[in-house]
């Protein structure tokens, strides 16, 4: 990413189809006890068609997208809004695009818009990130 420029897209990262096994593994590893991700009956009683994925699972994939673009230790900030729920069976593509290049704290940094979308192009998480870039 030495040639980073405004408008450049980060190489996309594809995840899924999401399974209930993914959700069980993420619940255990993250320590998130929320049964809405594990118990279909409870999720239905709350008005959902069934369990839905942890928002933080998708945000974790966005973290992987960023690190694969500019390297471990390069992420200065990331922020997402969980705009829509993500469901088992969906294939999620993580995407990012550079919106601005700035000089800050002695570093060259790229501001990016980031988002996840399903197989129909519906955006689920939307947010932004700030990445430190290597010196040209």
């Amino acid at each position, binding site marked *: 990413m030495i040639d980073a420029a405004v408008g450049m897209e980060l190489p996309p990262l594809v*995840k899924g189809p999401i399974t209930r096994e*993914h959700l069980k*593994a*993420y619940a*255990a*590893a*993250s*320590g*998130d006890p*929320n049964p809405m991700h594990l118990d279909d009956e409870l999720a239905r*009683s*709350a008005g959902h068609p069934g369990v839905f994925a*942890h*928002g*933080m*699972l998708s*945000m*974790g*994939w966005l*973290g*992987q997208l*960023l*690190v694969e673009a500019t390297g*471990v*230790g390069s*992420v*200065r*900030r*990331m*922020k*997402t*809004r*969980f705009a829509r729920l993500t469901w088992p069976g969906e294939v999620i593509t993580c995407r990012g695009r550079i919106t601005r290049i700035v000089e800050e704290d002695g570093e060259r940094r790229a501001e990016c818009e980031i988002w996840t979308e399903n197989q129909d192009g519906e955006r689920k998480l939307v947010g932004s990130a700030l990445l430190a870039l290597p010196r040209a």
Partner: protein
Amino acid sequence: MPSKDMIGRVLSTGSATVTAEHVADFARALGDPNPLYVDGNAAARGPFGGIVAPPTYPIAFMTQAMAGGMDTFLELGLNFMTLVHGEQEFEYRRPIRAGETLTLTGRIADVYEKTGGSGTLDFVVLETEATAADGRQVFFSRNTLISRRA
């Protein structure tokens, strides 16, 4: 329903040591094969001299490190059946390293409501700061929770 009187209250505190096993479990649950997260030998030869954590690892570490807080959290009076994670923000000063001990403090930073066509939504913003043994900040987390009032 959450009261603005709770703004500024400490929700929970704690400290814990980041273990390579926990970092690797978390990376595997994300399906992230980066050797700096999961392979101690490769990471030892890498730029940080050991295992480091992926960007969203703080969410798992916060759960592990911060004991208590549930009484204060319940006092907020959120509707758990409609509770969702609305927004999440992280700021990073440097990578989190396996083997280091971090001290965390979580606070209720804001409480507000919005009323729209589907009723009233309660918003609670939790801010958590993690510092290392040298007293310097390692990461900062801002977590917005939303519930629809019953």
